[in-house]
């Protein structure tokens, strides 16, 4: 390749090397966006599908910066858990029991979304500790034992969120830590991301 080669753009002679550099920079920025894209997307994209959590009185919605509903699970090994505690009344403490999570849709057409569940042990030994996490439907005022729509593979759910005015999808996060789970704190034990198909 000739380093001093120039290309004419809008009547100006631009070095080809400079143009190549611009293209590479653009690609690199796209690459970075794919890594940080989840945060960027939620902060800037107008969302039709909303994810929220409620205790029946207070509701928090995952939108804006961060776009996450943080919640705590306090459980004994071997015990089942359901949903968890979150700061639903916005008092700074995650002390409100979540009744159910909800997906709603502001668009005039239904939305098909995927919800992968990622369970991780980041307590230090590298072994995945959390098992049997499941999303079940919330119906008639209770979490059921019916899995939320179709579970595809690897704990990923394929969910259709009805169009605006046609209903919502209400669900619960349930699971059990094994009896022999090493006691400790497992951050990001459950991460649910809702993505378009």
């Amino acid at each position, binding site marked *: 390749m000739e380093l001093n080669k120039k*290309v*004419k753009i809008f009547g100006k002679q631009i070095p*080809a090397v400079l*143009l*190549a550099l611009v*293209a590479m920079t*653009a*690609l690199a*920025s*796209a690459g970075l*966006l*794919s890594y940080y894209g*989840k945060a960027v*997307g*939620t902060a800037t*994209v107008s*969302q039709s599908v*909303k*994810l929220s*959590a409620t205790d029946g009185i207070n509701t928090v*919605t*995952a*939108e804006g910066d961060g*776009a*996450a509903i*943080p*919640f*705590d*699970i*306090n*459980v*004994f*090994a*071997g*015990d089942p858990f359901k949903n968890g505690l979150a700061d639903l009344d916005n008092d700074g403490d995650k002390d409100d029991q979540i009744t159910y*999570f909800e997906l709603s849709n502001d668009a005039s057409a239904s939305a098909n*979304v995927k919800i992968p569940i990622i369970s991780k042990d980041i307590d230090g*030994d590298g*072994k995945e*500790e*959390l098992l049997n996490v499941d999303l079940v439907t919330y119906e008639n005022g209770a979490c059921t034992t019916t899995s939320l729509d179709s579970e595809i593979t690897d704990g990923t759910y394929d969910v259709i969120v009805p169009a605006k005015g046609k209903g919502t999808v209400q669900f619960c*996060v349930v699971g059990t*830590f094994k*009896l*022999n789970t*090493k*006691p*400790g*704190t*497992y*951050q*990001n*034990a*459950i*991460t*649910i*991301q*809702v*993505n*378009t198909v």
Partner: protein
Amino acid sequence: MKRSLVMFGIAFLLVISIASAGVLNYYGKIIGTANVQGPIFYADLTANGETVGKLLLNTKPSATYTTTFKDGAGVLFRSDNLGGIDFNYIPKCEFSIKVRSTENSRVYLICEYYDMSGSTHTICQTSISTSTIAGTKTASCSGTSTLSSVKYIVYEIKGDIGFSGSYTVETNPEGETKLQLNKVS
């Protein structure tokens, strides 16, 4: 012609790079922090005077019963069959017991497990003082190794050999007699 191709190529790359950023879409996520404590086994006598009771996993007994023993005898509580699971951490046994004795004395609290081959393994043991006033006492001890092929977790309470009086242990719906496994910090 060659120059046009170069220009087209550059424009194409720019469009692709912008598009790849634009298709990112994401509606929200739920992030949990799980604080997991070791299992609690509640001692449960199903009748007064039993010498072998149950350990209920994370469930308190439904009624109050007592058992009385003398000298170096005792009472033993056993979990359900756990199927040979491994505990890949060194456990700390945290005991609680509601007990009284006819005179001031001492009982020994033993944390152990039976494996699938039928062998008994003592995890650790400790002792607490007793008196004529029924009270809830707590104590703990630490194991020295992980647990393999666990069939039953066992909480054994033994009297002091040579003690002339008797001991009475109570299990109740408050769950005052129990054993919790935690990890050695």
